[in-house]
């Protein structure tokens, strides 16, 4: 562990560190004193997780106990991809003074790669950019991957669909949506992904039941891992009755949110069923 700075960070320095970490694709946690003597209230330090896994503490609280506790709290928050649990810690230091530390973790944005720059890709790139994804759109037609068509995308690339991810790093947090103009290209990209050692967190492919079934038969014949084939989201998206490209994009975006937030896709009104539960008791 390396330490930088011997003092707590100002709020603006902390904001700079967070913005910089996002650019670098690194995770960072801020630990803030939310209860304690007024002289230290609002003081904060940051703990950054380097790409190779090491932790760097940026800034320092005066009280040593606080630094140790902050480090533990940050470590937990940085290690769980969607921190739900303990976001604060109550502690009493040697002098008897009580403190409460609050941690906020900033994970780097998920990469979303939209393969095929057609009708669905346009609204999907905008919606997912609003959701905070780092969006890449690729196609083999140069005139389709333009800033004019995809104003919200972070990256646009012309690729060869036989080697579509040559210049793209795919890791276990990547999400890939296969919506090219031809099922053949979707299939080639899908097979390419299944042959790779790394399994991305989401692979969705568009298509009719028949075409998807044919694709799966081919993948099985190619001796690809059946468990990985079973995890492919095809057809992709939630069933909200989508017909138009925008409706389909919403259904795909909804599936991405559902997976990251661990929802179940049910209408809340049905799930809660409040009227029937509370007003129709016999």
């Amino acid at each position, binding site marked *: 562990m390396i330490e930088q700075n011997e003092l707590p960070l100002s709020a603006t320095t902390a904001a*700079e560190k967070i913005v910089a970490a996002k650019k670098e694709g690194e995770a960072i946690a801020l630990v803030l004193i939310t209860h304690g003597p007024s002289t230290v209230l609002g003081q904060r330090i940051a703990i950054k997780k380097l790409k190779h896994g090491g932790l760097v503490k940026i800034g320092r609280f005066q009280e040593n106990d606080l630094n140790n506790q902050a480090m533990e709290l940050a470590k937990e928050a940085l290690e769980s991809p969607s921190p739900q649990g303990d976001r604060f810690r109550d502690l009493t230091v040697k002098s008897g003074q009580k403190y409460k530390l609050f941690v*906020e973790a900033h994970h780097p944005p998920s990469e979303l790669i939209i393969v095929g720059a057609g009708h669905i890709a346009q609204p999907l790139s905008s919606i997912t950019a609003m959701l905070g994804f780092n969006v890449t759109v690729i196609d083999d037609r140069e005139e389709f991957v333009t800033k004019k068509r995809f104003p919200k995308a972070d990256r646009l690339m012309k690729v060869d669909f036989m080697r579509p991810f040559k210049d793209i790093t795919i890791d276990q947090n990547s999400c890939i949506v296969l919506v090219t103009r031809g099922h053949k290209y979707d299939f080639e990209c899908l097979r390419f992904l299944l042959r790779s050692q790394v399994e991305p967190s989401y692979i969705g492919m568009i298509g009719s039941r028949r075409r998807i079934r044919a694709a799966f038969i081919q993948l099985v014949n190619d001796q690809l891992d059946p468990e990985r084939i079973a995890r492919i989201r095809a057809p992709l998206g939630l069933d909200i009755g989508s017909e138009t490209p925008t409706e389909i994009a919403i259904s795909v975006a909804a599936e991405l949110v559902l997976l990251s937030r661990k929802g179940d896709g049910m209408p809340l009104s049905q799930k809660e069923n409040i009227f029937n539960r509370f007003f129709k008791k016999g």
Partner: protein
Amino acid sequence: MKETTIQNIHQAILEKTNQGRTVAVATIVATKGSVPRKIGAKMLVDPGYDIVGTIGGGCGEGEVIAAAHEVIASGTPQVVHVDLTEDILSLSPAVCGGTMEVFVEAVFRS
């Protein structure tokens, strides 16, 4: 990934304080019961300019905005206890059923 992302708020903190203004940043640090946003949600209040992000709309946001103005004037951070449990049937916009603690602090370029 998710919402007027927290990263956007940090970006906004930098832009606004770089222009020499003092802003207030509110963060939900604890919740109990039914509240509209979860722990970690943030809102930036830039008096006379705008508000970036939300800690839950009508549900308690007014109280926090008032605290934001106080904090900017005094420079001392506050923890605001927002109680959204009163009279659940009143249909007032500020009733969601839970309580939350919001840490509010002034931020400026030093």
